[in-house]
């Protein structure tokens, strides 16, 4: 068998052409949506975002299509970014084929929690709603559809990262968003495709380029359905772990982190040496089914 026996994945393969999906995981990883900002009294900021849910067929591993439900035509949806204390208005339009919502993790009133039966509840096909709340607490959070059946609405692609920066920010870094996700294209209740940011093996063939000694900050989330845990492991390095990103003090120095469904961590590291360094799920089944990538460290 050709290919690396460590990865169990043969050489000679490639990734999905980003033009097919209309989004590129190599860009998604550094794409942060700060919304449309407007200053408020007291030095605060109002940020407005637009999210539209619609159905879209995407390619998740070369040659295999999946009928996804998306926010703004991509999976994961836009990475919503703001600062603690910002006032947020997320205008949501349901242009899909099923009732959807947006449920944000964070602290807010129940009427904007995006669950059926409370406040606006389900947003019917063709309807729209604006979720308004104050951004708190700082950290790495999620947003996702909360319609029933919940697993179906999430596993089809209706989710994204929601980053609230501390008021004074974090130290400057090369920042990366990695959404661990998976797909069950044959609906046998067993995922066949695992990835970071949707396309299996993408970062193996399009390595994430970073600079030697520069601080790298990874916003790591796990939205995988059907499997209770996931994990992230890096080769040739260790990282500081900030669980949920809600503290500025790390609680662990390690090379592997395990996440349950919906769990998040902010990871910080520097690469002392140039070269190629793999990262992947240390649940090796997931790695062999697509959750595998590479850092390319350059001067």
């Amino acid at each position, binding site marked *: 068998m050709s290919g690396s026996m460590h990865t169990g994945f043969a050489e000679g393969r490639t990734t999905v052409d980003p033009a097919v999906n209309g989004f590129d995981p190599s860009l998604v990883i550094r794409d942060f949506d700060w919304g449309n900002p407007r200053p408020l009294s007291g030095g605060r900021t109002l940020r407005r975002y637009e999210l539209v849910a619609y159905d879209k067929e995407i390619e998740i591993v070369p*040659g295999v299509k999946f009928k996804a439900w998306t926010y703004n035509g991509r999976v994961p949806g836009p990475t919503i970014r703001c600062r603690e204390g910002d006032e947020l208005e997320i205008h949501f339009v349901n242009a899909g084929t099923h009732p959807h919502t947006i449920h944000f993790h964070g602290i807010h009133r129940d009427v904007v929690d995006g669950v059926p039966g409370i406040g606006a509840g389900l947003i019917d096909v063709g309807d729209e709603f604006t979720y308004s709340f104050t951004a708190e607490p700082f950290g790495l959070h999620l947003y996702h559809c909360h319609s029933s059946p919940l697993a179906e609405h999430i596993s089809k692609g209706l989710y994204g990262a929601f980053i609230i920066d501390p008021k004074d920010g974090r130290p400057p870094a090369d920042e990366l968003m990695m959404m661990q996700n998976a797909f069950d294209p*044959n609906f046998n209740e067993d995922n*066949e495709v695992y990835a970071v940011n949707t396309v*299996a093996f993408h970062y193996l063939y399009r390595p994430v380029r970073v600079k030697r000694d520069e601080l790298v900050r990874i916003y790591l989330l796990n939205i995988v359905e059907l499997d209770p845990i996931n994990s992230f492991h890096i080769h040739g390095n260790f990282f500081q772990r900030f669980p949920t990103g809600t503290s500025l003090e790390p609680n662990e120095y390690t090379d592997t982190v395990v996440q349950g469904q919906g769990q998040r961590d902010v990871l910080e590291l520097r690469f002392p040496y140039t070269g190629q360094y793999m990262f992947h799920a240390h649940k090796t089944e997931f790695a062999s089914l697509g959750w595998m990538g590479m850092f390319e460290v350059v001067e």
Partner: protein
Amino acid sequence: MKLAIALIVVALLGAGFVAMHGMPGGSGGVEVKVKHAKLEPGRIVLTLESHADNVVSVAQAIVNDSYVNFLAGTPGEADIALEYPWIEGESYEIELLTSTGSSVDFEIEDAGEPT
């Protein structure tokens, strides 16, 4: 068997092959199935059969939860050769993923025994 494999694309990429081939059949392993498997050194050769008229494409092959390279047969043949270092006496679950995401599933219970 009325199977008539039509080779659509065979792409040579680097050291290995990614092959896509069309075959008459449906989805979910219902209308297309693996007729038998032949174990050869370093690879598993599957013979497919179908009883449907529509054409689907096999885009990816999975053996024991790992994507593997495979090579489709020449036009008119029904074989798919999966590159896999199988071990005598062990079992293998195989999924052929079609372009639509459906799969053709097959299990080798005891490698080395006639299948």
